[in-house]
C-alpha cells in the first residue's frame, strides 16, 4: 500500500513561503510526476513527503496514518537522489544492504534480496566494487537497488536522471517505467524535464512558485491545459501563444496553437511568413517562421520530408479544432 495525502501542507523558510497551503492525493500504485521550472518547490514538496524537511503547517497522511511528525525512516518510503548519494566507502553489496542492516533483517534474507535486486538491475557483476568504480548509470541503478530492497510503500525520486547523459537518460527512463510496471508500487518523481513527465507519469502535477497549477494525466494536460503556464510548459516544442487581433478573432485574450497543429503549405493558407531557422531532425522538421504579421515567431512542427529552408516563403494554417483559448486572466475558456 502506498497512498499519500497532503492536506493543507505549507512550508516557509524564515519569512519566505515556498509552498502555500496545498492539497494533493496520490493513489496507491500511481506514478506521479512533479514537474515545474527550477525553484518551483517541487523538490521541497518531495522532501516534505520524505520527512527530510519539516512542514510549517498541514498534515501528511501515508496509508491513512498521520506521518507529519514521523522520522524519515519511519514513513516506509525510499528515496533516490539526484547525486545518487551512495556511501563511497562501502561496496555495492554493502550499499544495497545498508537499509536492511539498519532494519535488522537477518543476513540470509538480506543476501536473497540483494541477489534479486542485483539480477533485476544488471548489477550482479559489480556487487563487490565501490561506487567510485562505476559509471553514472550503474551508480543510479545501485541507488535504485538500495531503494528496492527496503520494499517501501512508495518510491521517491528527486531528479534521478539529471546527472546522466542524454542517451543513458532515455534508457534509464525506460528501466524506471518497467520497474513501476513490475512492482506496481507508488512512485513520486520530481523532474524539470517535461518529456520525462509526459512519458513516465500516470498523473502529472505541474507546479509553479509552490502552487499546483494543474493535476492530470499527461494527455489531459496536453489536450486541455488549464492556464497559460501549463500550456507553455507542457509540450515540446512549446505551444505558440498569440495575443492581439488574431486572439480577438477567436474571442480570447490569448490563443495557443501547438507547433504540430499547424499545417504548412508553400502555396496558400491563413498566415504568410518566411522561414527563419529550420531544424531538420529526419523524423520531424521544426520551422521558426518570421514576418507573419503576428507579434511572435511561430514554431511549426512538420514531417521530416518537408524541404523548406531559411528565407523560403511559407503559408501556415492552424487546425481550428485544436486552438486553445485563454481569457485575460490566463485561464482556459472552455
Amino acid at each position, binding site marked *: 500500500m502506498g497512498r499519500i495525502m497532503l492536506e493543507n501542507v505549507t512550508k516557509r523558510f524564515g519569512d519566505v513561503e515556498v509552498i502555500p497551503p496545498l492539497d494533493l492525493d496520490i493513489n496507491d500504485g500511481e506514478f506521479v510526476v512533479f514537474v515545474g521550472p527550477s525553484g518551483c518547490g517541487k523538490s521541497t514538496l518531495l522532501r516534505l513527503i520524505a520527512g527530510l524537511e519539516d512542514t510549517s503547517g498541514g498534515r501528511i497522511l501515508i496509508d491513512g496514518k498521520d506521518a507529519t511528525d514521523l522520522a524519515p525512516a519511519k514513513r516506509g518510503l525510499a528515496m533516490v537522489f539526484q547525486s545518487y548519494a551512495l*556511501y563511497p566507502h562501502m561496496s555495492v553489496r554493502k550499499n544495497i544492504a545498508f537499509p536492511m542492516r539498519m532494519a535488522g533483517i537477518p543476513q540470509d534474507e538480506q543476501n536473497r534480496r540483494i541477489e534479486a535486486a542485483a539480477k533485476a538491475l544488471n548489477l550482479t557483476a559489480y556487487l563487490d566494487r565501490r561506487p567510485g568504480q562505476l559509471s553514472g548509470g550503474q551508480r543510479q541503478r545501485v541507488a535504485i537497488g538500495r531503494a528496492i530492497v527496503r520494499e517501501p510503500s512508495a518510491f521517491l525520486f528527486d531528479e534521478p536522471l539529471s546527472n546522466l547523459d542524454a542517451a543513458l537518460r532515455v534508457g534509464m527512463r525506460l528501466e524506471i517505467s518497467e520497474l513501476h510496471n513490475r512492482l506496481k508500487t507508488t512512485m513520486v518523481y520530481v523532474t524539470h524535464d517535461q518529456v520525462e513527465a509526459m512519458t513516465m507519469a500516470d498523473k502529472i502535477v505541474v507546479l509553479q512558485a509552490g502552487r499546483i497549477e494543474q493535476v492530470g494525466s499527461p494527455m489531459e494536460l496536453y489536450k486541455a491545459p488549464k492556464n497559460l503556464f501549463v500550456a507553455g510548459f507542457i509540450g515540446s516544442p512549446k505551444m505558440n501563444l498569440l495575443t492581439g487581433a488574431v486572439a480577438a478573432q477567436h474571442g480570447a485574450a490569448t490563443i495557443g496553437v501547438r507547433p504540430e497543429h499547424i499545417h504548412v503549405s508553400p502555396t496558400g493558407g491563413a498566415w504568410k511568413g518566411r522561414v527563419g531557422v529550420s531544424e531538420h531532425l529526419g523524423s520531424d522538421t521544426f520551422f521558426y517562421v518570421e514576418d507573419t504579421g503576428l507579434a511572435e515567431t511561430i514554431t511549426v512542427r512538420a514531417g521530416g520530408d518537408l524541404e523548406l529552408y531559411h528565407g523560403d516563403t511559407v503559408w501556415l494554417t492552424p487546425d481550428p479544432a485544436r486552438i486553445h483559448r485563454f481569457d485575460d486572466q490566463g485561464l482556459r475558456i472552455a
Partner: protein
Amino acid sequence: MARAASTRRKAATTLIAWTVGLLIFFPIFWTVLTSFKPEAQAIAMPPRLWNFDWTLENYTAVQERSNYFRHFWNSVIISVGSTLIGLIIAIPAAWSMAFVPGRGTRNILMWMLSTKMLPAVGVLVPIYLLARDTGLLDSRILLVGVLTMINLPIIVWMLYTYFREIPGEILEAARMDGATLRSEILYVLTPMAVPGIASTLLLNVILAWNEAFWTLNLTAARSAPLTAFIASYSSPEGLFYAKLSAASTMAIAPILILGWFSQKQLVRGLTFGAVK
C-alpha cells in the same frame, strides 16, 4: 621553443623550491649537527661543518642532568590528551555547523577564530591566577585543559571544512535508510571523514607538542614537557649550545618521526578542499 621555455621554467621552479626547502631545513640540520660537537667547537668561528670531533658526550650530559623520559611522557600526555578531548568536543560541533547551520554559524566560526588573534600573553595573568588559586599550577590536567582550549578553534575549523566537503545528501540517504543519528555518525560520516579526522589529530598533536608559551609559564618541575626541557638549557649562567642542541634534537625527534611517517595524511589534510 615552447618546450625549451617550459623546461627552463621547470628547472627554475625546482631550484627555487629546493632552495626554500633547504633554508627551512637548515636550522634543524645545524641543531642536530651541533648536538654532536664538543661544547668548545660548537661556538667556534668560523663554524665547523665537518671538521670537528664527533661526540655523544652532550647526550650523556643531558641524560645525567635531567630526566628526559619524564618530560617526554608529559609531552605525550599533554599533546595527545588535549587533542583527543578537543576532537570529542569538536566532532559534534563541526557536524552541527556543517550540516545544520543556523543563522549564527558563520559568526560563531569567526568568533572562534578571533580568539586565536588575541596575543596569548594578554590572558596569561588571569589564567595564571586562576590556576594558582585552584591549585592546578604545574599540573598536567591544567595544561591539557589550556591546550585543548587553545587548539579547539583550529580543530573545529579543520573538521568543519572537511565535513563541508561531504555531500549532505549522503547523510540524508542514511536517514531515509533508517539510520539513527548515532549510526549515521558512526557508519557513514566518520568512515568518510577518517582522513580528515586523522590529519586534524596529527596536526594538533604537533602543535600541542611544540607549544611553548603556556607550557613554559604554567609548569615548574612536575608537569614540565619537552619544551621546558629544552628551555632549561638556556640558563642565565650562559648558553651551552651543544647541550641545548642535544636537548632540542631529543625533543623534536619523536614528533619529526611521527610527521615523517604520516606526511601523506598531513599534506592531504592540509590541502583538502583545494583540489577535489
